[in-house]
């Protein structure tokens, strides 16, 4: 203020006196000063200017879009990490307004591939949120891995050097690792490798996936004994013919023993030879190497074993030409209250878990019979705090189990159908006896809703998955968990046992599937590739493959030993609630919210994959054999019985 006045006075004075030159000099000097101060300001601003992110990114974007067609798709991959980190940098610096407008300007580019992440990131408005949100955290801490061919990498470097794009360069240095592969640009198909890598650095996943997985089947299982009996009988029938097969048999069992003793996976080459002339019904099982159980397994009662053997003898053989029969259990009048359903292994019992905390069990073998079951009512013991009522008197067709104090999210039958487990949002798991119709144990350990619970294939042990981001292993006789599997970055949504009981797989909202060693509690595989939360898991009966279904309707099949995706199964348009392999592993059935059961040909596509590995040809997608639409009934659960009859269940939802 004073300066200005003084200057004015000086100027007036000079004018009055007629010192024109001096006046001009003064003016010039003043101009120079002001511009220099201005440019100082500009410089200072550019260092802290929110617009530089905008400029930097939009320049990179236009450059990437106008690059050579052949390399464009590779270069475009760089945009997403740059975009996300520009946005988060802006937020971190506190330019909320600018972050917002930046986010919205370029959102459309990434909407297609990353809509779910964008939805989550959209909410970030302050540096505080950045620290709090798990997704943002993992994005900040970990690096994207982007595969580029040599030439595109060079192009990118040239661009960054030429344009002095410091902002983008910084982001790329900080958050992206390039995996430069020599030769031509790769196909677009492996895009998923690039974009899904969040929540973990590549090294970690790689390191984890290097560990051994003994995916073989259990020694001395019922199936194996069955097979032996079969081959014995075959031998007596046609000795000469089967000599070769028997020989193979011996070798394979030898191989199994070897695998078991050395605890090392052995992909024996005799597999193919054995498979061909063995009965295909059993070949799938016999092929797999044998491993020793790491848990002490419960002893199977003789009569149960007999019935299983009977079932195995009567098993229908399924493959891509002979499809299974599907029996569908429809829940009526659920009033939107059915949260989960499960079917026992023989299909005779169906359980429904409801949002009103109740668990109801239907005995399907009794349905359709006249309600004369009053005699069984006498068995009802006195009901305790946890009430169970077989309400035959009210001619109700089901048994009601009450005890939970929150919506029941999962229920599962033990392999022989005598026990039932249910998990609820009250963070407990309850064990019920279907023989006594009573609650036996309440397992408390989780701190948040338990989303899923699954019995192990041999019973006795079970695994649970919870909102508290852990999965836990329990045994029926202990109220404390045996193992706690921690590592997922978000809710663990589903859990599934490996056939040999040595591993469990968990699917999570962090879009990964992990495989855990039951004995050590360590994560030994990480499967990255899903684009949304994983809702269902299934293990192939030969123990080699795993299928996982997600919210978008994509199903992925994984090879456990390599940790790689065998092939994605695209076909469902909505959440895949349930997956099931047929007993010999030739078919995969999937049940979805789009009201269909789909049957996929697994056997031929894994074969095709083996061809791929050797040839390096184009990837063959798994084939869908059949889509079975239901009448507006989303399919909640699927189960192949031991005789290969497929059971499915769902709640009729009209008008939704």
């Amino acid at each position: 203020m004073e300066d200005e006045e003084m200057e004015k006075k000086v100027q007036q004075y000079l004018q009055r006196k007629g010192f024109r030159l001096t006046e001009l000099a003064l003016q010039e000097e003043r101009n120079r000063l002001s511009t220099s101060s201005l440019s100082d300001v500009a410089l200072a601003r550019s260092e802290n200017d929110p617009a530089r992110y905008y400029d930097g990114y939009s320049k990179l974007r236009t450059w990437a879009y106008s690059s050579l067609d052949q390399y464009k798709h590779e270069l475009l991959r760089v945009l997403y990490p740059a975009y996300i980190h520009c946005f988060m940098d802006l937020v971190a610096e506190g330019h909320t307004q600018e972050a917002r407008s930046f986010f919205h300007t370029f959102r459309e580019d990434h909407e297609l591939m990353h809509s779910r992440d964008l939805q989550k990131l959209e909410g970030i408005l302050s540096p505080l949120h950045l620290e709090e949100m798990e997704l943002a955290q993992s994005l900040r801490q970990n690096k994207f891995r982007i595969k580029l061919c040599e030439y595109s990498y060079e192009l990118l470097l040239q661009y960054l050097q030429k344009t002095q794009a410091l902002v983008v360069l910084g982001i790329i240095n900080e958050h992206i690792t390039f995996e430069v592969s020599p030769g031509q640009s790769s196909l677009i198909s492996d895009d998923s490798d690039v974009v899904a890598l969040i929540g973990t650095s590549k090294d970690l996943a790689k390191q984890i996936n290097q560990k051994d997985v003994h995916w073989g089947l259990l020694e001395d299982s019922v199936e194996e004994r069955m097979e032996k009996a079969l081959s014995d009988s075959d031998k007596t029938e046609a000795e000469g013919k089967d000599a070769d097969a028997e020989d193979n048999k011996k070798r394979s069992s030898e191989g199994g023993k070897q695998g078991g003793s050395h605890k090392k996976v052995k992909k024996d080459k005799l597999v193919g030879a054995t498979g061909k002339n063995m009965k295909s019904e059993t070949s799938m099982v016999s092929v797999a190497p044998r491993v020793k159980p790491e848990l002490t397994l419960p002893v199977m009662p003789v009569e149960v074993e007999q019935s299983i053997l009977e079932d195995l003898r009567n098993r229908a053989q399924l493959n891509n030409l002979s499809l299974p029969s599907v029996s569908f259990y429809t829940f009526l009048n659920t009033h939107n209250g059915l949260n989960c359903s499960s079917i026992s292994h023989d299909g005779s019992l169906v359980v429904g878990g409801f949002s009103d905390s109740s668990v109801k069990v239907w005995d399907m073998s009794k349905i359709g019979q006249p309600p004369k079951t009053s005699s069984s009512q006498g068995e009802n013991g006195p009901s305790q705090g946890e009430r169970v009522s077989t309400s035959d008197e009210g001619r109700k067709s089901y048994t009601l189990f009450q005890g939970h104090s929150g919506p029941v999210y999962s229920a599962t039958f033990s392999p022989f159908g005598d026990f039932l487990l249910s998990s609820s949002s009250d963070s407990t798991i309850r064990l019920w006896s279907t023989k006594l119709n009573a609650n036996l144990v309440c397992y408390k350990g989780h701190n948040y809703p338990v989303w899923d619970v699954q019995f192990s294939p041999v019973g006795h042990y079970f695994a649970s998955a919870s909102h508290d981001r852990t999965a836990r292993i329990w045994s029926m006789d202990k109220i404390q968990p045996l193992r706690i599997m921690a590592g997922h970055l978000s809710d663990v949504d589903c859990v599934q046992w490996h056939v040999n009981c040595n591993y469990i797989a968990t699917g999570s909202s962090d879009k990964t599937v992990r495989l855990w060693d039951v004995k050590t509690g360590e994560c030994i595989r990480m499967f990255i590739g899903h684009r949304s939360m994983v809702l269902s898991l299934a293990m192939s009966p030969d123990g080699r493959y795993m299928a996982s279904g997600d919210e978008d309707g994509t199903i992925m099949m994984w090879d456990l030993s390599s940790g790689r995706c065998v092939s994605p199964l695209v076909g469902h348009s909505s959440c895949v609630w349930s997956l099931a392999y047929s007993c010999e592993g030739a078919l995969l059935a999937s049940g979805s919210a789009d009201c269909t059961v789909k049957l996929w040909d697994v056997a031929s596509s894994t074969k095709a994959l083996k061809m791929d590995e050797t040839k390096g040809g184009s990837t063959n997608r798994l084939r869908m054999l059949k889509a079975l639409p239901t009448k507006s009934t989303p399919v909640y659960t699927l189960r192949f019985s031991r005789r290969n009859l497929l059971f499915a269940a769902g709640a009729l939802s009209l008008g939704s």
Partner: protein
Amino acid sequence: MSIVPKETIEVIAQSVGIANLPADVSAALAPDVEYRLREIMQEAIKCMRHAKRTVLIADDVDSALSLRNVEPVYGFASGDPLRFKRAVGHKDLFYIDDREVDFKEIIEAPLPKAPLDTAVVAHWLAIEGVQPAIPENPPFDAIVAPTENKRTEHVKDDGLPVDIKLPVKHVLSRELQMYFDKIAELTMSRSETSVFKEALVSLSRDSGLHPLVPYFSYFVADEVTRSLSDLPVLFALMRVVQSLLHNPHIHIEPYLHQLMPPMITCIVAKRLGHRLSDNHWELRDFCANLVASVCRRFGHVYHNLQTRLTKTLIHAFLDPQKSLTQHYGAVQGISALGPSAIRLLLLPNLQTYMQLLEPELQLEKQKNEMKRKEAWRVYGALLCAAGKCLYDRLKLFPNLLSPSTRPLLRSSRKVVTTNPNKRKPSTDLSASQPPLKKMATDGAMNSLASTPMAGNMPGTMDGFSTQLPNPSMMQASSSGQLVESTTSGVIRRDQGNIHTQRVSTVLRLAWKEDQNAGHLLSSLYEVFGEAIFSFVQPPEISFFL
């Protein structure tokens, strides 16, 4: 910046008792509120997924809140969708319409019906990979697409599976073949039996018949052309078509193009049945209704269905070379399509057609008894159609019968009555004329015929009395006074109305789109005389008169 504006925070602060929240506080809170909201929604979506739903409901938000140790928001638990109302005077302000509930009402209300208990039913979704056609399964989409029809897999040397598509071969199960044969046999030979009725019921209910539809439509088309002279068979075939159309499980639209021609044939064929006594009229009526129902159901999907149909019908109607039976069918067909079809297609041509028809109706001109009978049939159908149209107009615009139409009516009536010489009614026609729908000969009217015919047509009396020996004829011309008797439905025999130049001008005016019902009535009156009044509701006619 955030989707929650500062103002909202201020409003919320006020509502919890903080009167003056500093601006910077609300500005800082707003983004955090948005973040928390998103967090809760994320949890709610998780809960929704685990409840195996794809639609978010209030319960999910409640569970998400309890996950975060926040008290749930009570009061939104009902399953109904929330009804938001726009606040008056504010564009973007909505609130939930929450009525005040009177406890007394609730207590006194009768108990609602208990909701049905949950139940489980089992059915076969597939048997060895094939979905059985039972009501529990969704209906098939037409015939299975050729690509999915049958696949065989040939494993080549390299082990890669190859799909080879066989030529499409429609495989019909043995049961369905037997079913088809049985139905065909019943239709052709035993359509009178009760078994056939059962068969029709089965055709209209069974859900597994879809594979047979192409066979049935071919069967119908084929048999109709072959047995045009066999009326019972035609009737049976049309009944089969009707049952197929009624079947909710059949997707019949792709076969309509095959089914329509036989149906239309049964409406406008020259001869149906081989004997004169055959009641082919009934068949024509039946088919007309059937076709109309098809139009109503598929008109919007099968866009040129109705135009093609009406073109066929109007051709049949307007061709003077065609026989009267064909004309009858065409009239019935159009009239079944509804009042607007009548108004647009029949009424404009009514005038000219009546000129054609008139000679056929009269004993003097048409000596052939059969022909005359047919002409009367056509006349009756036309009358019915016109009446239906009029009835509809009147129902639509009850107040159109304003007093202002009266002079016009009067004048037109004068037109009628001042040219009595052209009337050529014949009394014995009444005997030969079969009773028309909605009209019954009413002997009582004779007594009313003597009512004075004074008023506006005094000059006509003489002409009528000389030419019309039957008193009912006089009554016909003096309709103005015979309110009650006309509404009771009387056969009118003054059909042979005069068609002077003047009348046609009146008509032309009247057929315009914006005509009012009064005009319509008067012009129809021109054509049909009082018979048309039987289609007017009593209160209206009294007003009108």
